């Protein structure tokens, strides 16, 4: 490869001189052709003359030449841009410069963009839109591919012309729906209540509320599909709240037919106080077992801007018992906050209810957050670790023994 390059270079160098004279002439003819316009003829022009002296500023001419016509068109346009149009222009330029900016942006999004308080907020919002756009595009591409494959499969099937024999009519999804709804209806009468506290709207941004509702929708669906669903209560739910608007976006007409209880009352008004347990990661108490007679409360809050103690404060105010999941006890925690998403909580609680098996339940904690399960309690593990360390570091051993003797004189 390299030798070929070298050869090429040599040829170029050698050929520069003889062609220099010719070059001047070429330039003239080139300018003539430019008045007619454009690069297409340039390209043709080039291809028949492989090696010619380089005119390094030729690109400028090309750029300017293509423009003269455009300029004459745009001159009549009014120069002043409205702020919206200006923002749109700026976005377009950013996109050309290769920044993370969506290709299409709606008027509403553009307004949100302009209302962002800072530069970094603007950047973040644009990146969010950009990624969303990418997702949508990918989704669409996949759907198209799928459709094509399905059509092909249909063609094939019609060729082979095989008749299926089965005693069931193929009505899977609607039958399943009926079965699920039946169970959910049963849970409305006999099921163990599970409360979602919907009083955190003020603590959250619009994005966070949207995320919360998404997680709640996921929770509801996984509850509906379970063998023994909870009776879900949305308490402190205000009509015409941001929560409600988001829910309607997700469920549409189905919102009124959901088999859950939605109320603006507080849980303390519906249930006896001594039965309530507020689940919060900030609680000093750790949950030992799942109690089938208690009513657990989960705060419907996505907290991206670390506001610690918000739900604990709520429980304290109402004088409720609190509990945290025994994450430390069963998992060797590595990174990430101890607060889990609402659907993860739902999965964990459902599994606990059915099996009372902590290990199985805590499988739903995201894998990135922990290194592994602990068989023994962590305290024991630490003791063994200390022991191993003291045995390893022989010289430090005496010191440790001394320390032990001082701290625990009786032993």
């Amino acid at each position, binding site marked *: *490869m390299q030798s070929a390059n070298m050869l090429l270079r040599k040829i170029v160098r050698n050929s520069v001189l003889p062609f220099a004279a010719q070059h001047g002439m070429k330039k003239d003819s080139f300018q003539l052709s430019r008045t007619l316009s454009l690069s297409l003829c340039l*390209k043709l022009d080039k291809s028949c003359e492989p090696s010619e002296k380089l005119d390094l500023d030729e*690109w400028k001419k090309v750029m300017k030449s293509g423009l003269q016509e455009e300029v004459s068109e745009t001159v009549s346009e009014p120069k002043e841009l409205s702020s919206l149009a200006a923002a749109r222009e*700026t976005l377009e330029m*950013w996109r*050309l410069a290769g920044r993370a900016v969506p290709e299409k942006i709606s008027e509403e999004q553009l307004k949100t963009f302009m209302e962002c308080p800072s530069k970094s907020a603007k950047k973040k919002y644009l990146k969010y839109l950009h990624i969303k756009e990418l997702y949508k595009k990918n989704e669409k591409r996949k759907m198209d591919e799928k459709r094509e494959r399905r059509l092909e499969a249909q063609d094939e099937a019609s060729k082979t012309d095989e008749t299926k024999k089965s005693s069931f009519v193929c009505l899977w999804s609607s039958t399943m729906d009926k079965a699920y709804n039946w169970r959910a209806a049963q849970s409305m009468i006999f099921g163990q209540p599970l409360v979602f506290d919907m009083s955190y709207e003020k603590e959250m941004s619009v994005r966070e509320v949207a995320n919360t509702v998404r997680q709640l929708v996921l929770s509801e669906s996984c509850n509906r599909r379970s063998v023994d669903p909870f009776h879900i209560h949305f308490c402190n739910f205000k009509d015409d709240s941001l929560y409600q608007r988001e829910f309607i976006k997700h469920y549409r007409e189905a919102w009124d037919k959901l088999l859950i209880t939605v109320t603006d009352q507080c849980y303390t008004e519906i249930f006896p106080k001594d039965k309530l347990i507020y689940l919060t990661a900030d609680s000093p108490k750790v949950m030992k077992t799942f109690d089938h007679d208690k009513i657990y409360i989960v705060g419907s809050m996505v907290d991206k801007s670390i506001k610690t103690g918000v739900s604990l404060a709520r429980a304290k105010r109402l004088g409720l018992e609190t509990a945290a999941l025994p994450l430390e006890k069963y998992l060797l925690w590595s990174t990430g906050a101890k607060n889990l998403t609402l659907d993860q909580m739902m999965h964990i609680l459902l599994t606990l209810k059915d099996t009372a098996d902590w290990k199985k339940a805590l499988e739903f904690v995201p894998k990135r957050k922990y290194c592994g399960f602990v068989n023994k309690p962590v305290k024991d593990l630490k003791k063994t670790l200390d022991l191993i360390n003291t045995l390893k570091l022989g010289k430090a051993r005496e010191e440790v023994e001394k320390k032990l003797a001082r701290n625990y004189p009786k032993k």
Partner: protein
Amino acid sequence: VLPPEKPLQAEEWNKLREDFQLPEIFEEVMLNSMIRCNSPIDVAKSLLTHLAKRDGDIAYNVLVKYLTLCVQQGQVSEIRDVYDIMKVRFKILESGAYNLLIKGLSNSDQWRMALTLLEEIKKVMIPSRTCYESCIKAASHHQEMKLAFELYNEMMAKGVVPTLDVLQSFFYFSRGMNGAELQKELFGILLYLRENQIYPHKTFMRSIKLWFESIPGGNWRGRLTKIKDSGQCPVCNHQLEDSNLTEEEYSNLSERIIRDVIHGTDTFRKTSPKEFEAFQTFVESRLPFDIVIDGLNVSHIKSRKMQCENLFDAVNCLAKENARLLVLGRKHMLTNSSNWKREIMKEMQNKADFFFAENISEDDAFLLYATLRSGKHCKFVTRDFLRDHKACLSDSVTRHLFRKWQRGHQISKNKCFSSVFSQQPPFHYDCVVQTTGDKWHIPYKDVFEEKYSYQVPRKWLCIQQK
């Protein structure tokens, strides 16, 4: 990819492109590496020419990359050409290109063009800090101080925060110039440093010193010094401003601490109304204290000792000076355990007042309240930097007040538990730029000195008029 050393012909570019793994981004990658290697501009030109001939157009991002190379090498005429092309080709440009253009032009004799560009940017967006800075530097470099200050004031009015670098350039380029207006503006910058508790670095300090000394007929003389612990300047014997807050500042700060730190959005988050009320009556009935101790924090000073022994040592050591002590702790300290011996706790309670908060309450908030309530003489002991509490305060003015108060009132280094605390002893003087008209005292830090936000510089520039 290494860029070629000499301009290439179209075929050669084509060949290179074909050999490249991802031909779609070949031009971008190539230009990036040209920028990195600072290749001759002709090589880049040949690539552009090749592109122009092939496509009849050159993409915006490629032009910007080329512009970067031109700016890097200070090719002014080239920068102008690119600008002309961009201007006809696109209605407006984005901030990256504007930054480059202004940076490139302001370093040349065509710096006035940078100013017209700045005007152009203002039509569509707020110019970036680097744009303003390039223009300001260009103006002051050409002795147009009035223009430079106009730009500076405009930038401040738009909420664009200047770097120390640009502030320094004002002093650097104003040397030897006369004019009351100019002096007023430069004093304004010094006051800006004061208000925002900014400390200039050594080179900046030198520019300030030289400027003062160069004022015609000013008779200023500056010397470097270290201020004594008493707050006296060894050079001019001037006593620096003391670190106490004024009455108004003090009451303002206590109010804000109660409102923002203790109550915040919900009193239940850090304590409960009932507990806070109990604490308030407890404190009011025993006021004033001389020293308030964060019991749990102090009890962890030496990890080898039992926790209550650590606290015991600290209380003993502070009690000797006949001071009224208040120790804040949590209820779990009262239950007899391996770390908290009941007898020792009892003995301590004879020497100091104790308040035990609930185990899930935050005792730091109580610490702040009790100290502030006791008055200006009261100090507090903790190793904690209290950053999270400072962060609860909603505006920067109060945060600065908090820092100032903290510097004057936090004890963390003491004879009896020395070497453990890393913070500085409380200061009796305020560590900010200050003046009495004929004297200026300016704290500064060494250029490469690592300074934590809680530390203040120990070196000072003393300037006085003879």
